[in-house]
């Protein structure tokens, strides 16, 4: 698959004013981000909010530089618990999704159970996980897993359960077994749903791991922010938030990229609804 780069012609044509040679659409996210920080800085200056309420971004960046070593360590820890929990969720979600989508009877029987399970706020499970596994990385990983595997299951199962009856008929008339139909049609067909759900799942995984770290761990950004908060080190709290945002955006972008690479066909065909 080749990537067609648009707007290359104007940017190479000399003699045009600078403003026309810049790809504003590509630049927009960065400009808006910088804009947000500038606005925030101005707001803090104008309202003269004390750094213990809302620190200015300059103050936050200063905190990042000052505490770089603990921030870096805790960021890696959070990234680690989140990614491990997410990886388990991908494997388990794919397996359970395939199992549920396999037959109409299993789908009908397990779906309400899954909905019920998903309705439980996963934060409420953290104390139980602590009782079972003690405080530390394990509850964080498990919370990330529990909170993020549901969208994967639902998406994979839906992809399988919505195979067009005609396609199934054509294959069954050739003597295809259930396994054949799943391998040739069901699983490839549910892949766009699966990869689409990864973006949602990774975001949720961060929620799970940070919540668990906040209440039940001695490591990670969640723990760092809660101890910074108890020392009224508000700039450090915001520094933690910023790192979380950076990690979240990076992982989301990675998932979106994987989705594009793996299931480009689904964006061009009319299959996806």
């Amino acid at each position, binding site marked *: 698959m080749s990537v067609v780069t648009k707007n290359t012609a104007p940017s190479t044509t000399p003699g045009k004013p600078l403003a026309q040679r810049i790809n504003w659409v590509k630049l927009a996210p960065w400009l808006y981000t910088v804009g947000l920080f500038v606005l925030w800085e101005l707001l803090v200056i104008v309202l003269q909010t004390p750094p213990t309420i809302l620190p200015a971004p300059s103050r936050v960046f200063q905190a990042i530089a000052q505490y770089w070593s603990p921030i870096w360590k805790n960021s890696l820890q959070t990234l680690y618990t989140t990614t491990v929990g997410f990886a388990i969720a991908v494997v388990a979600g794919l397996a359970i999704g395939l199992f549920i989508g396999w037959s109409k009877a299993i789908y009908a029987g397990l779906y309400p159970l899954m909905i019920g399970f998903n309705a439980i706020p996963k934060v409420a499970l953290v104390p139980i996980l602590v009782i079972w596994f003690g405080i530390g990385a394990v509850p964080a990983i498990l919370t990330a897993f529990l909170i993020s595997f549901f969208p994967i299951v639902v998406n994979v199962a839906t992809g399988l359960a919505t195979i*067009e009856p*005609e*396609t199934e*008929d*054509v*294959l*069954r*008339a*050739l*003597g*295809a077994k259930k396994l*054949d139909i799943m391998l*040739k*049609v069901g699983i*490839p*067909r549910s*892949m766009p749903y699966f990869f689409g759900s990864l973006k949602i799942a990774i975001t949720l995984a961060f929620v799970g791991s940070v919540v668990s770290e906040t209440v039940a761990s001695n490591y990670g950004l969640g723990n760092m922010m809660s101890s910074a908060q108890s020392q009224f080190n508000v700039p450090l709290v915001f520094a933690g938030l910023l790192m979380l945002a950076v990690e979240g955006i990076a992982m989301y972008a990675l998932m979106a990229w994987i989705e594009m690479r793996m*299931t480009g*066909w*689904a964006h*061009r*065909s*009319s*299959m996806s609804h």
Partner: protein
Amino acid sequence: MPHLVSIDNVDMRYGGAAGTLAVSGLTMKVGKGEFAAVVGPSGCGKSTLMKLVTGLHIPQSGVVIVADKHVTKPVSIVGMAFQNPTMLPWRTTLDNILLPLEIVERHRHRLRANKREYVEKAEHLLETVGLKGFGSKFPWQLSGGMQQRANLCRALIHEPELLMLDEPFGALDAFTREELWCVIRDLHAAQGVTIILVTHDLREATFLADRIFVMSARPGKVLKEHTVPFARPRDLEVMYEKGFNDMVHELHGEIASARVVA
């Protein structure tokens, strides 16, 4: 002529004892190598008939025999094509056409070792339907009519003895349809395959078929059977003859009155 398909006094009801009775007392026989067309009012059970013959549905009473075997499970000597092409969008057109070979017992174990031979065959089929060189394209890169042609190739790749076509040209424009009629006509002449075609287009039925079965409104059964007298090979010009129009007219009248009875 020995019968390839024999349906005898078949009842088929959907959804349990209180469900819809789709066909009732259906009897029809199709000889080997014959081209049969089935016409009838909408909802009279034509698609049901297709599913009975292919073994996708098993009737509650009556007997369906295909190639001397009582049908109790899907029979794998058939190729099927429906109105919507059901190509898999993640496979190239060529891989879509090769799909039946990955399923049918007879071929699936030979496929890997004899891939070249099968690909050549698929490319030959593509050429026959006027899609030479489109094998590497994805289905969504083809027009509706082109997908329908590829669909035909897929139905034919495993050399089925029986080809079941359920309104395969419904969504096409008149010119493409006529072109594909000729493709089907030539395939039938060249390969001696038995074809059962369900259609709403009476001219299509008359142009292509040896025999035409007219079905009643639901619950469907065969009301009348016509033998089409025109000599083969038929040219599209045959459609402008008087005898042809008389036949279409007669079929039209029969279906119109079958609808009124319902």
